[in-house]
């Protein structure tokens, strides 16, 4: 199932978000505008704005006023991707050259900061201290997650707990915030805000784990970037941690041999093949499934409206991504 099909209750609003983004930065400097258009053209599922718009359906106020804040969360996400591509030295994202590849490190750095600044200005206009606090806190935690990821590159002693902690910060938090912000901005019941936050956390975790799985089983066309890119940067994800913990002695020894130095060329292929020969992918899928089930349990607590059905479909979509 295509993900946009799950956004039916907010399809028009999502188009408004796209329009908002299209018109964004039009009056700004040409190079910034050109860079932004390139980012927009590269696509993106607009998951975070979709969550924001869906969560707004649970509030008491008109959900169309949420368009800017939904766009703001997409800008925050874009800013983090632009910086990530410099940090990871990535030349491709979603099948297109990255901003870094086109314009260099410094432009990417300043452009990412510029997008973040614009997003903050948009969010601030809502004069909602809780949303501001959550965004600030989420941003801090995201950065700490990334710092931790770099600090633990090639660290083969990472535990599952450390991995989950890292991906919570890296991915889940912004999705959690997206799921809460719409509801907060439209004055939803606090219990619903909490439930949506928990849903966002579980879906965010599942989303990142499937991303990590796809790095082992998908092809470059599906990923939009070279396969095994995590391995090449020494990022040890769930499938690899499984092998290092529960694999046979031979598998452990071979994987340690591949991962204890920068993984290049044929070693990437061999490491991926090794992981695929074990139960690591099945294990990771099982973990994903558990998070999806937890997300669905939260959905069951939400009012019976069309948005709830969308959230349910989204949770199931995350699990089915790898197929």
């Amino acid at each position, binding site marked *: 199932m295509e993900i946009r099909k799950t956004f039916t209750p907010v399809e028009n609003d999502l188009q408004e978000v796209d329009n908002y983004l299209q018109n964004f930065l039009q009056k700004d*400097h040409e190079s910034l505008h050109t860079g932004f258009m390139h980012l927009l053209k590269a696509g993106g599922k607009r998951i975070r704005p979709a969550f924001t718009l869906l969560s707004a359906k649970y509030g008491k106020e008109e959900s169309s006023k949420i368009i800017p804040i939904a766009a703001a969360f997409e800008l925050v996400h874009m800013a983090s991707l632009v910086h990530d591509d410099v940090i990871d030295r990535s030349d491709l994202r979603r099948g297109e050259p990255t901003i870094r590849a086109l314009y260099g490190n*410094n432009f990417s*750095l*300043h452009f990412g*900061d510029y997008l973040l600044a614009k997003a*903050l200005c948009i969010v601030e206009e809502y004069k909602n*201290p809780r949303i501001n606090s959550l965004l600030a806190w989420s941003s801090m935690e995201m950065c700490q997650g990334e710092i931790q990821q770099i600090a633990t590159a090639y660290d083969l002693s990472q535990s599952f707990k450390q991995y989950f902690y890292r991906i919570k910060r890296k991915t889940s938090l912004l999705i959690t915030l997206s799921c809460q912000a719409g509801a907060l901005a439209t004055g939803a019941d606090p219990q619903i805000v909490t439930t949506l936050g928990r849903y966002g956390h579980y879906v965010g975790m599942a989303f990142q784990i499937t991303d990590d799985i796809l790095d082992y089983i998908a092809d470059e066309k599906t990923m939009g970037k070279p396969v095994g890119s995590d391995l090449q940067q020494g990022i040890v994800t769930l499938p690899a941690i499984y092998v290092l913990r529960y694999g046979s002695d031979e598998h452990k020894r071979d994987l340690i041999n591949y991962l204890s130095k920068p993984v290049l060329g044929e070693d990437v292929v061999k490491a991926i093949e090794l992981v695929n020969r074990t139960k690591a992918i099945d294990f990771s899928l099982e973990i994903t499934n558990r998070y999806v089930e937890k997300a669905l349990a939260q959905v069951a607590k939400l009012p019976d409206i069309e948005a709830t059905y969308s959230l349910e479909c989204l949770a199931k979509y995350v699990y089915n991504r790898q197929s």
Partner: protein
Amino acid sequence: MLELVIGVFMPEISAIEARTLKILKNCGSYNLHSLKFPQTAEKRHWITVLCLLSAKLAKDTNTKVIHLAGVLHLFNLASHLHLNLPEDFDTVEIQEEIQYPILVGDLLYSRVCGDICKYDLQQYLQPLASLIGVIHEELVLRDAKVKQNLPHHEHEINIYGVMTESTCFLGAHAAAGNNYLVENIRALGYQMGIIKAVWELNCEIEPYLNNWYKAWELLTKLPIGPERDHFQHILTFLGIKWGLVKPQLLTEINA
């Protein structure tokens, strides 16, 4: 230049530095000393000092002002980390020269927002967010000119101008709210930022003489007292580089 003023605000600055160090150490496992933070007092404390001085001039420093000065200190450090990156990956230490500066800078910018929310300074979120945008837009324009081998210092000078202007305004506003004095302090901050930038970047002062005279003129509109003397001391110090002294102003001639 700032020794006298730093002495006046030593307790506040020490507390801010201690807190900043704690924040940086809690960021994660990395080599703190590898990050290129400003080392000289002029660069490191320019923003903090001006915030506190502006507040004291407008009314007085208080807890809110000190928290704001701490926020601005983090802002200053984050902006320094994000000033420049190497373009060539092959000849650099990736972690120390690219990855950590980006991430710690991002973290500090986020921390700025977090502390604004934590210390009930949310009214200043929009101006600070706008300031981040202005700074990085200017840096994009600067880098474009550097690539074309065109003069580019005007953009860095502009950054100093708006940063100092914002700092002085926010410090004064946090102390005294909206009034004409706060606006005068803001205007003075802008001119001083320009002069400071010209001084820092070793540029010619001639194109900026108007800013120099304007700064002195604005100084005369401030209440007489030790705080105004400190601003005067800073301007006088900056002028030494170009052999400039306090100008005889129209107001003084008329008087």
